[in-house]
């Protein structure tokens, strides 16, 4: 009897503990959001979106150049990364010949796990070193390398979920295989594929490590071939500076960045991918 009671107590205690673990983890998100909204909201103003950064001591100023810079760098990265990733994903899902497909899949997962700072070194050796200067281009190549494996795996996953009957229908009507893929399989899987792309872009948009020594930063407007500032790098610089004004700006930038990233995530997961399970990898 005593032993049964003990077992019941252990049962109750351990199950409660697992619940506590969950509550603590989930509340972390709300604590983080709360802090950002409270601190960032204090210093976020219209100027933040329209003005260039000002020197320490001057009031006002914003990060318009970093917002545009982020858009430039991430946009170019998407331009390079999405087509490569998408077509590689089509290959894995539709033409997979087991052996080569397995290798590509495995290597893509490994590439996805390579630390972002190491990818930054790759872009530095490929672009910054031969051109002798930092540029938005170098940063976007680093981000593209990170984006490719994400898009590939997501595209593959969602194309595989397209039902066999749809494919057979297209083939029975006399379509060749590539026509079947282009007109039936890809449209049918497009929602999931698009979701994967948005999630991938949202992830690279928040990266700062590979940009620090590739895109560097700029107090003024950047350009494709010039050093360009980005929101994540500005947050890092401003947060680690000794000035209170800059700390406040960093909070505001943090709020803007997390607003963009979470909006993209929530929209992609809830609106676009209703009923589609989003895999992580």
């Amino acid at each position, binding site marked *: 009897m005593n032993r049964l009671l003990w077992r019941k107590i252990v*049962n109750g205690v351990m*199950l409660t503990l*697992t*619940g*506590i*673990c969950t509550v603590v*983890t*989930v509340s*972390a*998100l709300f604590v*983080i959001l709360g*802090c*950002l909204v409270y*601190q960032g909201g204090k210093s976020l103003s219209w100027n933040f979106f329209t003005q260039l950064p000002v020197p320490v001591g001057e009031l006002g100023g914003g990060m318009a150049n970093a917002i545009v810079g982020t858009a430039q760098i991430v946009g170019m990265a998407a331009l390079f990364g999405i087509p*490569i990733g998408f077509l*590689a994903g089509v*290959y894995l899902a539709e*033409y997979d010949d087991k052996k080569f497909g397995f290798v*590509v899949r495995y*290597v893509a997962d*490994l590439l996805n*796990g*390579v*630390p*972002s*700072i*190491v990818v*930054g*070194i790759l872009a530095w*050796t490929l672009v910054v070193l031969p051109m002798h200067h930092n540029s938005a281009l170098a940063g976007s190549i680093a981000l593209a*390398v990170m984006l*490719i*494996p994400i898009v*590939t795996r997501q595209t593959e996953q969602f194309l595989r*979920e397209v039902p*066999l009957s749809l494919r*057979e229908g297209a083939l029975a009507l006399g379509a*060749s*295989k*590539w*026509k079947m893929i282009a007109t039936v399989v890809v449209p049918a899987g497009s929602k999931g594929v698009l979701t994967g792309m948005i999630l991938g872009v949202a*992830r690279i*948009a*928040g990266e*700062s*490590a590979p940009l*620090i020594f590739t895109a560097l930063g700029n107090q003024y407007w950047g350009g494709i071939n010039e050093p360009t500032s980005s929101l*994540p790098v500005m*947050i*890092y610089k401003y*947060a*680690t500076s000794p000035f209170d004004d800059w700390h406040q700006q960093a*909070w505001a930038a943090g709020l803007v*960045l*997390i607003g963009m990233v979470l909006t993209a995530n*929530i929209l992609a*997961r809830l609106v676009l991918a209703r009923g589609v399970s*989003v*895999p*992580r990898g």
Partner: protein
Amino acid sequence: MASQAVVAEQQPAVKIATHTGDIIARVVTFTFAATILAITLLLVYQLYKSSAAARAALGFGFLTSSEWNPVTDQFGAAPFIYGTVVTSLVALLISVPMGLGAAIFLSELAPARISNALTFVIELLAAIPSVIYGLLAIFTLVPLMRLYVEPFLKHTLGFLPLFKGPAYGVGYLTAGLVLSIMTIPFVISVSRESLLAVPREQREAALALGATRWESTWQIVVPYAKLGILGSVFLGLARALGETMAVTMVIGNVPRINYSLLAPGYSIAAVIANEFSEAGGTIHPAALVELGLVLFCLTILINSFARLMIIATTSKGSKRA
């Protein structure tokens, strides 16, 4: 992942007459798939080539020396490797029990709707950029650690060499703590996946034999999914090892080996982030690239283990209905 395997088996073995368009489409997509291999090989080649100067000048002493002074051209990787490993271990020590607990709750106890909603929130946690974690850590966690947590640890556990020295707020412990929050979502989502892949009959059999809910979970379900859970731990570890920004902002950036967890240190990723853009001469940048190569090898090794383990478990069971 289990569903993916099932779908894969359904792929048709239909033979279709080959058209020119088919050949072109196949070649084009194949080229892009091969691009992924090419990029990875290029990454390895560039890391190896660009670190040649450092390897020639420093040899294997690079890995064991703990002297880092770019002015006198002394480069030793030991403090960075030590810092990277210690912060990652601290992170795992916290995130594995927490993550496994939450994964058990989400897969075994919570009703499907609640479980899905909470998993969604946890996935959002994984989507938060690392620099945001760093920002929050600098301004909220560091003061908390300096004023309350570290004095408390010194007071109660100060007799251990792990908790000696002044409380700076920044250091291995704080960095490990931030890393643990960042790795928990990975541990949870992969562990939950593996736990869900355990066949329902296993649970029913245990419960029918009179086991409590916890006994069935801990003695039957968790061992069944142990490879996948181990995989999630390794995945989290690889993530923690390569994490840059958040660590750079709170580890203290002092290239010394300190045995106290309260002391400031340095990590591989942090030193690359801090010094790479200003590295002059030939050996300093090459030494930093070599550090990158060390980090790359570490994470590749751990990641390949993790992937193999996850493949092994999730293809074995069937999902809970």
